[in-house]
């Protein structure tokens, strides 16, 4: 019996090998890009978007008024041109005449009116509704104080779409590259209800259309022959594979099952660099890893103490040893990489770590804390090996100063639930990734009224400068200068403790071209080709 099983197993195994040979070879006529994505999208409805994982897919499926090219530079999308009124309030978009939905119907100004209203309609429950709060009545509609029809958007004629803003907003166009402002097809939503999003039903206006969506397995997009620039789209099929296990993703890449992957297990970085060489691409990404610190709670309400803590943290060590250089040492809330903006770095950034430690120690001694009579500090972080290691390293770095760090680890939902409800803590781990390329995206979270202001930072001077920046919306250079000054105040106040800047970490096969590196980590499949 045992022998028979063994025999059967051998036959079984050899048949698998033969089957395997058949399955690996792709059809020759089609160019297929197998793209690793860290997780499945939450939704393919642009108005229900919430993570960066679906951003890649939505950018392939839909086309907004403006889009980003392979360098994350703004390019015309469904709108071929636009004009801005002299007061900076009215944007008039001229839609391209040849833009059509995948069902052949034209993309009109009414589609954008519908999409913008839908994003703000409270019934949609859009997480990114705040993207259009800059539009007149946007916030009022979303909070139920005005009707969706009152949103200041208008179809002047089928190819002219007009938006009126509350105040001059120089980053408005940049915001429109965000997937939450993409249009959806009204006719199919009216006809199919919730099923409009299903493969086979989904009507989109981007370079690709949805062919298959098997949750946790794959999303298959196929080239949209009706796309206005279809002649320049080189891929026939894009398969997105959500591979949550980073080690598996690496092995799938190595075995050729994936042509690219958007993350790596950072703990293996040194080995991966040696193994993959140029195929591993790491570079600055617009994101900040920081610690929120309760600025309104004793003893942390003391700026001098907060600054001493921040100063004593060895960010080079964190970046090199804990994160294996997959992050960069961070001294400002706005990471470098936004054109025309000078981030305000902590004043101690250029000093040596030894000097910083000595200074920090002196401050703590002055305040009466020593290793014998330590100050207690609790660091909260959400579950992740790297977040833990970061906290442990900081615990060790602060010990000689007379700070005794304890740690509280909770899962992500508990962690952010606690922060959101203004629960008690001393220091808590947080991170911020840019939704659009503007310092506002990073500085807004430290404003008094922001739900993301976990530090409870409240500085009239900071608020004043941020208001001034908003008022100077018509003068972009002055506005950026105002914001840099605001950040100076925030950093000198140690309203948050910036620790690291994020990096993108992509594995890209040499067969792939057009997967260019940029600070937004944006790689539209439309510009990608495969040998």
């Amino acid at each position, binding site marked *: 019996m045992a022998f028979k099983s063994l025999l059967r197993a051998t036959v079984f195994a050899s048949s698998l090998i033969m089957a395997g040979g058949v399955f690996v070879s792709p059809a020759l006529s089609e160019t297929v890009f197998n793209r690793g994505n860290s997780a499945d999208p939450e939704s393919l409805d642009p108005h229900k978007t919430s993570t960066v994982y679906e951003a890649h897919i939505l950018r392939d499926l839909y086309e907004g008024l403006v889009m980003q090219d392979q360098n994350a530079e703004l390019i015309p999308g469904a709108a071929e041109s636009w004009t801005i009124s002299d007061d900076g309030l009215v944007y008039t978009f001229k839609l391209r005449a040849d833009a059509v939905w995948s069902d052949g119907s034209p993309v009109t100004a009414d589609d954008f009116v519908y999409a913008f209203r839908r994003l703000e309609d409270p*019934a949609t429950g859009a997480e990114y509704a705040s993207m259009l709060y800059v539009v007149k009545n946007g916030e009022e509609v979303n909070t139920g104080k005005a009707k969706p029809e009152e949103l200041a958007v208008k179809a002047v004629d089928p190819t002219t779409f007009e938006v009126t803003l509350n105040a001059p907003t120089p980053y408005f166009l940049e915001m429109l590259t965000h997937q939450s402002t993409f249009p959806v097809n009204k006719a199919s939503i009216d006809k199919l209800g919730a099923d409009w999003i299903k493969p086979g039903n989904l009507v989109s206006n981007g370079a690709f259309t949805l062919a298959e969506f098997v949750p946790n397995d794959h999303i298959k997009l196929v080239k949209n022959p009706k796309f206005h620039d279809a002649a320049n789209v080189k891929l026939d099929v894009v398969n997105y594979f959500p591979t949550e*296990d980073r*080690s598996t993703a690496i092995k799938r890449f190595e075995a050729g099952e994936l042509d690219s992957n958007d993350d790596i297990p950072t703990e293996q970085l040194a080995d991966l660099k040696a193994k993959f060489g140029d195929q591993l691409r790491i570079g600055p990404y617009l994101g900040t890893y920081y610690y929120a610190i309760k600025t309104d709670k004793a003893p942390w309400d003391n700026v001098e103490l907060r600054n001493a803590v921040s100063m004593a943290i060895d960010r080079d060590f964190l970046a090199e040893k804990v994160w294996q250089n997959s992050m960069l040492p961070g001294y400002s809330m706005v990471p470098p990489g936004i054109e025309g903006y000078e981030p305000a770095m902590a004043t101690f950034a250029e000093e040596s770590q030894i000097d910083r430690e000595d200074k920090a120690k002196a401050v703590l001694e002055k305040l009466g804390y020593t290793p014998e009579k330590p100050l207690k500090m609790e660091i909260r972080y959400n579950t992740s090996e790297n977040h833990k290691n970061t906290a442990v390293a900081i615990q060790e770095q602060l010990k000689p100063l007379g700070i005794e760090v304890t740690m509280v680890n909770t899962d992500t939902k508990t962690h952010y639930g606690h922060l959101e409800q203004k629960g008690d803590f001393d220091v808590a781990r947080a991170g911020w990734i840019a939704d659009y390329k503007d310092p506002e995206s990073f500085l807004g979270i430290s404003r008094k009224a922001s739900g993301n202001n976990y530090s409870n930072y409240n500085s009239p001077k900071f608020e004043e400068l941020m208001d001034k920046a908003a008022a100077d919306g018509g003068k972009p250079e002055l506005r950026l200068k105002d914001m840099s000054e605001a950040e100076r105040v925030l950093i000198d106040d140690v309203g948050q403790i910036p620790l690291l800047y994020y990096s993108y970490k992509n594995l890209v096969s040499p067969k792939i071209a057009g997967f260019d590196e940029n600070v937004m980590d944006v790689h539209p499949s439309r510009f990608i080709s495969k040998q």
Partner: protein
Amino acid sequence: MLMYVLRRLLTAIPTLFIVVTLAFFLIRIAPGGPFNQERGLSPEIKANLEAQFGLDDPLWLQYGNYLNNLAHGNFGPSYNLPDFTVTELFAAGLPISVQLGAMALTLALLLGGTLGIVAALHQNRWEDYAVIATATAGSTIPTFVIAPIIQLVFGLTWNLLPIGGWNDGAWPNKVGPVLTLALPQIAIVARLMRGSMIEALRGHHIRTARALGLSDWSVIVKHALRGALLPIVSYAGPAAAALLTGSVIVETIFAIPGIGRYFVDAALNRDYTLVMGTVVVIAIFTIVFNLIVDILYAVVDPRVRYD
């Protein structure tokens, strides 16, 4: 017997009700909610989202609505994957988990059972030691170690199998997950089988059968095996329920779109409806397989009667 089965199925309803009620309130006690994330939402936007899913209703009403929907076979929408209802997610994932689990269970029972019998018949000889050593190793090496080794050896070094993915259920994609699921089960079944077979072979009826001159084959298969199967049957029931509803580790490592990972992911995401759906499915599988075990008992062991 039929009465017994009917009675058991009827008592399953209150059991399910208790499980559902406990799960409903327990997951809501957990801190944080489905819409807490790194990028915090303003209170108004969060309120819009909660209203959309009825999470702004009083808890008793939410509970009532959930039970009512459940009674109509409606598990509700998933909060974190709003493109799909929970039913759609299970319709896509459950067949995959069941398929892999059934293959692993079959492999475990056949191979583990055979190894156990071989060991028992050669007690304290090399065959026995080999089986015990393998079984111990098999049940102590965790799946999260076995799975990457299978990927590395069969996938990267020998290029025989794909690393991961489901690929519409192609054969090669199933081998790694099935082997990983089956190995620890083979070990457990082999040890159980060995123990109970040794026990059975000592029975008086075996001695009598041998004395009557029956062949070895007949003694072992017809007389000893039947009694020795009882512990395997009682083990296989809960094991089947667990295997068929998927394994979070195996499905995550091999990137398999089954339902096993929903059990953990949904709880971490506070995707209440998906958690509830998973609990109901696992509860039903457990109840059904326990019933099957009890019926099999009566089939295998004539001393067991349900009147």
